């Protein structure tokens, strides 16, 4: 079932007069950069999920909050859909434009407004790059914990909208755990503050609701994040295994020993070879799987924990254990992991990144399922895995220029996500639903639950002008999805759906 906007399933698009809207915006907002010529629109036609492209009707690049406010007010008045875009690195088509909508690009809001080392907070504009915050905090011995692999490029506004994670989430939390306050403009152009500089705020926890809301509830215009003191030391152990399941069991054993590592990542053989080929991180290319386990904190504790983890890994059947000798080697070990996506990208004309999360105990079953599906569809799959928190990134290798292969990759991806739901997991751990997983939402949630999501949306945007078509599927789309699934159910291998 296709994910592209289909009026039959997703609702009629508004009939809009591009020239008239452009005139209204130009008049209402002095000095606004508003792109409208086709050649200027092309750079914005997709996000990180680049197999799907749509030319936006108009692209706005505001520089002041007053401009953003006016733009929202005008679009609200005229009934024009607005899609917010940060850096466009999203992997679920969340910032995919609409040909009948304005793309609101926030990349020019790139100032760090304040670093307060005493209060340990940073106040930044939404277009600031994730890594830039840690760089600015570094002279004070502080850093911003969530570190998505895209951190050199992705924006903090996009991080809030996706509730982005990173390789240090198990111990330090996701974006939602590290943002204390956001300033928001509603679709009506009203301003509100969610959260506060204190540790809580009166009323509903709208800050939590806005984290991960994919630009569907409001536009985030300023973010205050918490900064942490840099750990005194961090050490990385790399363990190799001749069997993926053993590596998976080792993860559980580390946690069972009472240790919460700063980072705990796993890669399978295909991903190891790709990363090694690209980065030369010193990975063992013969291993079926490797685990990277980072222990951080106070020197004395870290040494104790390293010894414990070593014992656990040996008992779990690791064929080799290597501790990074110094910070340079530690950085190199991580560079291999953080560049795993582009590394895999070099092995194949295209790749498609999945983001399901599963209970870790189901790892062996899910990996087996993925490898069966990979064989069935005749497409290779490399596995990169935030092992500590069960967030998997199977990367499906395909060639979009081979007719039908994109469809096959999509279908295979869909099956993987449904498998994640079946074992009690979720279709997305950190990349968001966007447009990409719109169908699988129908597998994860019942129609009445989706109706509750729509009710939450209606509280903030009853006209459905913010990022329409993303995140929550329409009832029509889900009923079609279910019809197709029940037809498939005649085939015995069909998934069981979510457990109750």
């Amino acid at each position: 079932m296709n994910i592209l906007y289909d009026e039959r399933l997703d609702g009629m698009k508004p009939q809009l007069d591009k020239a008239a809207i452009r005139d209204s915006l130009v008049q209402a907002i002095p000095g606004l950069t508003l792109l409208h010529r086709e050649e200027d629109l092309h750079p914005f036609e997709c996000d990180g999920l680049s197999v799907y492209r749509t030319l936006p009707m108009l692209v706005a690049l505001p520089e002041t909050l007053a401009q953003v406010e006016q733009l929202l007010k005008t679009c609200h008045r005229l009934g024009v859909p607005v899609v917010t875009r940060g850096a466009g690195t999203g992997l679920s088509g969340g910032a995919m434009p609409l040909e009948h909508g304005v793309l609101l690009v926030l990349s020019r809001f790139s100032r760090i407004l304040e670093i307060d080392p005493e209060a340990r907070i940073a106040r930044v504009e939404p277009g600031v790059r994730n890594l830039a915050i840690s760089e600015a905090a570094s002279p004070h011995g502080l850093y911003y914990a969530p570190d998505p692999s895209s951190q050199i490029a992705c924006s903090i506004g996009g991080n809030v909208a996706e509730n982005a994670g990173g390789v240090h989430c198990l111990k330090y939390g996701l974006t939602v755990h590290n943002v204390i306050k956001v300033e928001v403009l509603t679709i009506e152009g009203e301003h509100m503050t969610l959260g506060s500089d204190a540790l809580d705020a009166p009323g509903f926890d709208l800050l939590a609701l806005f984290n991960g809301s994919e630009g569907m509830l409001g536009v985030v215009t300023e973010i205050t994040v918490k900064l942490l003191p840099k750990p005194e030391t961090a050490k990385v152990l790399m363990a190799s295994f001749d069997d993926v399941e053993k590596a998976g069991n080792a993860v559980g054993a580390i946690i069972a020993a009472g240790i919460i590592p700063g980072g705990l990542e796993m890669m399978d053989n295909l991903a190891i070879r790709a990363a090694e080929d690209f980065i030369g991180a010193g990975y063992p290319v013969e291993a079926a799987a490797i685990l990277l386990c980072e222990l951080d904190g106070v020197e004395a504790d870290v040494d104790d924990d390293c010894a414990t983890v070593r014992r656990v890994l040996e008992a779990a059947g690791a064929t080799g254990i290597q501790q990074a000798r110094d910070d340079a080697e530690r950085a190199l070990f991580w560079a291999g992991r953080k560049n795993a996506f582009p590394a895999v990208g070099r092995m194949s004309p295209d790749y498609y990144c999945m983001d399901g999360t599963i209970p870790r105990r189901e790892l062996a079953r899910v990996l087996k399922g993925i490898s069966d599906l990979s064989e069935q569809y005749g497409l290779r799959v490399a596995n990169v895995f935030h092992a500590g928190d069960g967030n998997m990134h199977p990367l499906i290798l395909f060639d979009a220029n081979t007719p039908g292969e994109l469809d096959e990759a999509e279908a295979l991806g869909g099956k993987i996500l449904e498998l994640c739901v079946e074992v009690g997991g979720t279709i997305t751990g950190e990349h968001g639903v966007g447009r990409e997983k719109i169908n699988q939402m129908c597998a994860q949630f019942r129609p009445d639950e989706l109706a509750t999501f729509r009710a939450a949306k209606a509280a903030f945007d009853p006209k459905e002008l913010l990022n329409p078509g993303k995140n929550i599927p329409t009832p029509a789309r889900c009923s079609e999805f279910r019809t197709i699934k029940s037809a498939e159910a005649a085939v015995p291998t069909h998934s069981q759906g979510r457990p109750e």
Partner: protein
Amino acid sequence: MATIATTPHDHDASESLAERIRQASAEGTPLRIVGGDTRGFYGRPVEGAKLSTLEHRGVTFYDPVELVVSVRSGTPLAELEAVLAEQGQMLPFEPPRFGISSTVGGMVATGMSGPRRPWAGSVRDFVLGTRVINHEGIEQRFGGQVMKNVAGYDLSRLMVGAQGTLGLLTEISFKVLPIPGAVHSLRIEVSLEQARNRLADWGREPLPISAATWLDGALHLRLEGGPSSVAATRARIGGDDLDGGFWNALRDLALAFPANGNDDAPLWRLSLPHRTPSLALSNTPEETMIHDWAGAQRWLKSDIDAETLRSACRQAGGHATCLGSREGPGSAEPFTPLPSVLLKYHRNLKAELDPKGIFNPGRLYAAF
């Protein structure tokens, strides 16, 4: 592997709870949701037919290796904590208990966190998923039992602190953590000002501090972490040994307030940004407060005029909550009033998720 601890009290009452809600919805009669009834003082009094969660009880899932536990809302908090402790794990946010009858549902609905909060996170930070009976009497599931989940809006975390005004929580899944290997509590006699300065310095270093409270002329600290770092920090900081029971008393608000405070006056909770200096309130010296959370949460017993206190807190970037007296019915306006735009969206959300206004109407604010 997953262990599910069952007790003879375990019972799934979700169907009868749903039936009560369907009835209330049909008749348009408001419900007053009650668990162990230990937190009535935290929030406005609610007019409505009592709906008790106590029958809906039991730990339904616990896998220590996954760090995940799922619990029915009527389960006593003490029971959950005992189940976790048996496996060497805990709820890291140290929720106040206020009494043995306190339930997990009430704890989540009120969303209060204890002394470890600034270092470990709050209740909502550890909520992974919820089951909620909606206004139509349908039990719905949001979030889940995995660490990371961004499918759909985060309605689970929205329920935390919503005081039951958006639906009836029937089950909550939490992330849990191992109990730290080493703990040491200590007491250092210092002035409030000195305590603030020291905490500011220590806060920029990765020290294993997990609680910091100034009260009655002394800073009370808890160190938690690996044995090596706790021992090293203890040697460096010095101070007198403190009985760990202090934190339990603090957590449950059972500590005696400083002698010069007014014991019969209403209890206030001030939530302020880190490093907020003394608020310069006339007749209310900061020395009469309990300064928890390294100063970010201050407890005060005072007859001070609400608006005076609230405006001082607002200016500092925080807010003030009036808890009245522990025994009393709760104060008329416990929570800081919301700015108009924010209030509008609170009302919209309430109207969307509880269109007939049957769930704890008025518990948070008179307007909804």
